[in-house]
């Protein structure tokens, strides 16, 4: 067994060596540095295209998904080795998407064979880009109060309502959307629908963020016709009608893991060593960074432990909430410190030297980490209730 794994490791290593272009081993600097796929996608460079295609053909865009759904069918132990070898050469993810992080895991768990064949393959091959239609203006933390309504018309629904904060809705091809199908039943009256954003009646309006970018939108549904089926064994909803809340919650667990990992979690190097002006740091700032590194490097161990336990089906099911909370709070702190280390140069908003305000804009963007995918307060509420079993509402 151990020998097999070592054999696997050396195979992966030489495959990466041969297939990952040098350019794809540089740190990700902006969103376009990672390929997101979709009908209207374009590659930023030849290297990006080459890297994506090599991974896609090998199933490495989603290494642990079964081969028949576009993955490489790696075991948990192999998956871990794959991630370690990717990290060792600093390889960029070949493909990023909400399909991979969110919808995919939900389909693997709840989907029909027909849905898996179609949608998982489309995701793994980067053909369809998905967005997440959960939040509404009046329903954020209290998501289950959502009102977007689908009226049953026999073989289809007519959907009306509004979603908000829909990340990349203006670039996405399809949406996985929570729609109320029973007004009498709060938890058991929501259906997890899948539909094409090109359907008549779907429109989006970008919202400008404080970072100056605009990756999220208001999404309007105005008499949108959603068929109940896309073909044999391909229903237009995941799980059962009116049981979408179970799917929604399952998916949120994965979303939270993903967000915590992009947080303070997956970095092996210390913060002090990545700031360029190490020698000149004020002593108190240096101490503050060292304290951050203590927390961040410890958190990295927690993430690893969590992943190992997850694959072995151990650990408390509500733990992703703890990781999401801790990881995102750390990431915000990290960026506060990067701003402090950068000084007045980091304040620059659009100069060439600052890469168009890279440090400042990233700092502002991280403030959303503890809001998106469920706020820190909601995470703490879940921990208190589900893990600590504290009494009360």
């Amino acid at each position, binding site marked *: 067994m151990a020998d097999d794994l070592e054999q696997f490791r050396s195979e992966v290593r030489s495959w990466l060596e041969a297939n990952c272009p040098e350019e794809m081993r540089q740190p990700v600097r902006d969103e376009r540095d990672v390929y997101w796929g979709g009908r209207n996608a374009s590659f930023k460079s030849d290297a990006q295209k080459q890297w994506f295609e090599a991974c896609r053909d090998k199933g490495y865009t989603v290494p642990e998904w079964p081969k028949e759904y576009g993955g490489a069918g790696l075991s948990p132990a192999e998956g871990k080795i794959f991630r370690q070898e990717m990290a060792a050469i600093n390889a960029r993810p070949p493909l990023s998407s909400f399909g991979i992080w969110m919808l995919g895991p939900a389909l693997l768990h709840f989907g029909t064979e027909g849905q898996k064949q179609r949608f998982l393959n489309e995701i793994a091959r980067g053909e369809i880009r998905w967005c997440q239609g959960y*939040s509404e203006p*009046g*329903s*954020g*933390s*209290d998501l289950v*109060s959502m009102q977007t309504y689908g009226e049953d018309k026999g073989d289809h629904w007519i959907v009306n309502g509004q979603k*908000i*904060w829909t990340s990349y809705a203006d670039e996405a091809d399809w949406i996985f959307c929570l729609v109320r199908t029973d007004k009498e039943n709060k938890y058991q009256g929501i259906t997890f629908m899948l539909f094409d954003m090109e359907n008549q009646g779907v429109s989006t309006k970008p*919202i*400008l*963020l*404080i970072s*100056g970018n605009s990756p999220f939108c208001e999404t309007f549904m105005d008499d949108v016709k959603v068929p109940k089926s896309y073909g044999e064994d391909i229903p237009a909803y995941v799980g059962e009608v009116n049981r979408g809340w179970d799917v929604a919650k399952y998916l949120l667990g994965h979303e939270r893991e993903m967000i915590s990992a992009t947080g303070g979690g997956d970095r092996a190097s210390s913060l002090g060593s990545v700031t360029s*002006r190490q020698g*000149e740091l*004020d*002593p*108190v*700032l240096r101490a*503050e960074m060292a304290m951050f590194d203590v927390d961040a490097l410890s958190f990295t161990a927690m993430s690893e432990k969590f992943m190992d336990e997850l694959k072995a089906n151990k650990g408390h099911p509500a733990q992703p909430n703890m990781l999401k909370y801790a990881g995102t709070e750390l990431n*915000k702190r990290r960026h*506060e410190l990067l*701003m*402090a280390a*950068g*000084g*007045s*140069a*980091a*304040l*620059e*908003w*659009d*100069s060439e030297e*600052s890469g168009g*305000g890279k440090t*400042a804009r990233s*700092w*502002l963007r991280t*403030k*959303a980490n*503890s*809001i*998106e995918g469920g*706020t*820190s*307060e909601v995470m*703490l*509420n879940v921990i208190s209730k589900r893990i600590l079993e504290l009494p009360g509402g």
Partner: protein
Amino acid sequence: MPLYHDDDQAMLADSASQFMREEGAINKQLRHWRDRDCKDGFGHGLWEQFGEMGFTGMLVDEDDGGLGMGHVEAAIVLEEIGRNLTPSPFLASSVLAATALKHGSEDLRSRWLPGLIEGKSVFTVAIDEGPKHNPQRIGCKAEKSGNGFKLNGKKAFVLHGASADMMVVAARTSGSDDDTDGVTLFAVPKDTSGIEHDARRLVDSSMATHTSFDDVELDGDAVIGEVDGGREILNAMLDAGRVGAAAEGVGVARGAMDMTVDYLKQRKQFGKTIGEFQALQHRAAHLYAEVEIARAVTIKAAQLLDGGSEKAELMASVAKAKVAKAAGLAVREGVQMHGGIGMTDEYDIGLYMKRDRALQEFLGDQYYHAERVAQLSGY
């Protein structure tokens, strides 16, 4: 002296508050100029109104045509500036440069102060040479040349440098970069040849320049105070500026806190107003405590400065650091408690976060000043 505002100060606070709320409001000034990509980062019309209100020359001696007020009064105006995020050259011109000019010759004062008092002239200061505040190191060199000086070197983070009619420059006239002695301050007029401004927009939509001096010829009478005797004036200027920046920071903190508490009273989730959740109530109450404490130490530092106390230096650093912590907390809690809407450009809470960041950095952040507190306390 009691640590609250006397009747005159309370009246000043009322009129400054009303003025900034009406004339200096976010939509009227900050967003207005930002959305027009204004190269000054503030409105000259508003600056003239500052003059009419008597703000511009409030720290200038009565003999020089000013109001002869103190740092407590300047702090009152700055707090209102902070609350409304009003962009203006007040801190750099009326606090920092005006403090330096107090030490200037009769000639210098009569050349520059009338324009300031009227709100026609804009000043700035050029101290730091790198991305972090470090006034100990002055590498810019002013060498004797004829009756005057030749200035060479580079300065960074010069607030609205390209818009300033006069810039107070800290330069070295003897010794080496890190020496305490050998520093001289110069009042450098705008169009002197050999000056180059590289203007940058900052995160809070204000402007700052990287400014370089290439054989800039200065008259001997551009010297503020004595040749080689600039360190003490520089320190006085820095203390005044730090207390001023702290006062503005208190205003930013209060503005952000007020908006947030308001939002807690309006937004409903789970069939309740979110302000009903004790998890948020305690944090709002904690924030209130921190902001009140920060405000108290800022008034204290301003009073000590006005009284010429030897503890003023220490308390200026305490105030700058404490306000940075409290205002940082206020803007972070503000965005977080607004949820998704806090991340949008449409809402003002993010603007408070941006302004706070720039203010934190100006004249030393909390880490710099905590270190200074340790040093001044002898450990």
